[in-house]
């Protein structure tokens, strides 16, 4: 109880607020990720108390994940990888003059989703972590395939083209050193390619540069007008009215996000895509997804912040980081003499209580800090499209370079920008390619290790209970629609008669 009250002291709350503002700033810049924001804040926390340090880390994480959705909505450039799914409907809403509404929804859903994630973390962290630990190579392989099948669902209208885009992404992910044998694949002697294709420049290119090329292809027409044609503001009441009507979408997406986040290696980005895909598949307005529908904003934005709570589950209970952010945070834990693992609740119970309280406060503060962030970033977008397009090109370039100080990544971004532009011209969806690049290594590694274990026998991939659940889910992803229509026809037809 002492640490709960201790969190409310100015020496904890003030650094947390500063860190949250910093998170909004970093997350909103394309190319600068939430991981980078956390990595940058850690050195500042060296000389602080563990609680204040944790407050800064947690604060910066939640706000930077949200802030990534701001350029995703207005410019179609995801600020962080976890904002990729938010682009789909958020940007379409912005194109219709409802960008402020999309971001207001996003802000509340991020806060609510984050809170749900934290509450799940507090209540069911132990059983969930145990379930996550039961995942072996076979389950992780199917989890990856499930993600890819979701990408086919995400593709607007054409499942086969979506699949091809996803498979091309997976193929791209094989570029670089083969982890098992150390053999360089498709590198053609280029040292830069040894490390593989960095997916953030690829994502910036596919979404950002392709959007610029699309905007400038008609010459000067449309370039002289302001980027945002709507009246600026943050319509809080309108957003709240919508949210009240959609409690199940938020709760379902937040639970999915938390669960995916709890799986080591699968972070907020995969959580957001899976939640979006699930919502699209189960929604009555399935066909409207991707056209600027509010459910398409609510699902991924609730899930990506909820996933943060999930990533803490294996991190706290087993000392296994859920994603790159918690990997950095675990390092900070050790720095403060806190040993993550099953005994943390007994040995450092006060710190864990403090952490939970901080996470709850951070999600409440997110609404205020996020509000400021939306207003600040939207000022920039009052400029003419021509100026904004030039700025997007520049920030995309510098953002791509900044990830690993590599000029090569600028060329990667350009290549993917051109691919994205050509994809749009031929009706091939781009999001599955990103998911393919992200999930490719996970699928390949687990397939190969699994096959090595079984001596090439695939039956193990189907006989384990959790694997079987995934196989059924994948089958439902592809054939769930036709099956439900058939059932509807049979029973609906009977009623009519």
């Amino acid at each position, binding site marked *: 109880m002492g640490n709960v009250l201790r969190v409310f002291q100015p020496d904890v709350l003030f650094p947390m607020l500063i860190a949250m503002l910093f998170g909004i700033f970093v997350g909103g*810049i394309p190319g*600068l990720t939430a991981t980078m924001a956390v990595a*940058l804040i850690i050195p500042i926390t060296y000389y602080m108390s563990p609680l204040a340090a944790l407050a800064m880390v947690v604060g910066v994480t939640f706000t930077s994940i949200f802030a990534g959705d701001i350029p995703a909505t207005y410019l179609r450039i995801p600020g962080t990888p976890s904002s990729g799914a938010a682009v789909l409907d958020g940007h379409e809403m912005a194109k219709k003059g409802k960008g402020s509404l999309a971001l207001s929804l996003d802000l509340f859903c991020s806060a609510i989703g984050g809170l749900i994630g934290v509450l799940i973390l507090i209540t069911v962290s132990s059983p969930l972590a145990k379930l996550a630990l039961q995942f072996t190579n076979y389950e992780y392989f199917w989890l990856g395939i499930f993600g890819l099948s979701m990408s086919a669902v995400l593709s607007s*209208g054409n499942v*086969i*083209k979506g*699949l*091809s885009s996803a*498979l*091309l992404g*997976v*193929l791209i992910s*094989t570029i670089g050193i*083969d982890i*098992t*044998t150390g*053999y360089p*694949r*498709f590198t053609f002697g280029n040292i830069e390619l040894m490390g593989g294709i960095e997916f953030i420049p690829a994502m910036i290119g596919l979404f950002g*540069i392709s959007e*610029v*090329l*699309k905007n*400038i*292809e*008609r*010459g*000067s*027409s449309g*370039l002289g007008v302001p980027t945002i044609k709507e009246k600026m503001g943050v319509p809080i009441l309108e957003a709240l009215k919508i949210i009240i009507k959609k409690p199940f979408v938020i709760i379902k997406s937040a639970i999915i996000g938390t669960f995916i986040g709890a799986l080591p290696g699968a972070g907020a980005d995969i959580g957001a895509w899976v939640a979006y895909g699930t919502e699209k598949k189960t929604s009555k307005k399935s066909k409207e997804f991707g056209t600027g529908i509010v459910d398409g904003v609510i699902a991924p934005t609730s899930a990506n912040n909820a996933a943060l709570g999930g990533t803490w589950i294996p991190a706290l209970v087993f000392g296994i980081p859920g994603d790159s952010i918690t990997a950095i945070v675990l390092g900070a834990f050790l720095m403060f003499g806190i040993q993550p693992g099953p005994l943390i609740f007994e040995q450092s119970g006060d710190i864990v209580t403090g952490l939970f309280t901080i996470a709850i406060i951070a999600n409440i503060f997110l609404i205020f800090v996020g509000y400021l962030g939306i207003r600040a970033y939207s000022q920039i977008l009052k*400029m*003419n499209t*021509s*100026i904004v397009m*030039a700025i997007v*090109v*520049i*920030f995309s*370039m*510098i953002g791509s*370079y*900044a990830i690993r*100080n590599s*000029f090569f990544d*600028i*060329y990667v*971004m*350009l290549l993917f920008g*051109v691919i994205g532009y050509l994809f749009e*011209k*031929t*009706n*091939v969806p781009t999001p599955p390619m990103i998911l393919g690049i992200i999930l490719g290594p996970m699928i*390949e590694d687990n*397939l*190969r290790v699994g*096959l*090595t274990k079984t*001596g*090439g026998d695939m039956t193990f991939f189907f006989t384990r209970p959790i694997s079987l659940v995934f196989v059924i889910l994948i089958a439902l992803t592809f054939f769930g629609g036709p099956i439900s229509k058939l059932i509807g026809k049979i029973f609906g037809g009977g009623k009519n008669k």
Partner: protein
Amino acid sequence: MNYKNIVYGSILILLSIIVILISLEFPSYVVRGQELPGPSFFPQVISIFLILIGIYEIILGILQTFKLKKLNEEDLKKEEGVRKTVVTKKGLFNITVVIAGIILFVPFINLVGFKLGLFIFSTILMTTFSVRLLRAVIYSAIVTVIIILIFDYLFKIPFPEGILFSF
């Protein structure tokens, strides 16, 4: 003729064949006399799937050409939507400037330095997008200062000083 599907399918097949041919040269992975899935295994599996999709796309394109498969209204609308977005001459020029500009940006900043290079590049981009020169210069100066403050001073990301000038 529905060229888009046929061309897309052909590209998928061609790319997959190239991948398979390259991966044939990858070493096999043998442990204690047992051949295990090596570096070529996964790319080849993916390529086979892509070839199948490529064949499907080509057949679809041919069938649509001979009107054996009728397009539904939604597809027609999409086709119309794509046809409407015609690239103009000025648009093609814009695209060329962006692509060439990004390609030349790295050697250019290595020559004149990051700060000056970024300012010039930004001004060229904005004037290409029909922003008046004075406005483009002012905005470019602001953008350059912001980028330097964020990336250079705050995040300490190293940028080239340039061979010709350094300041």
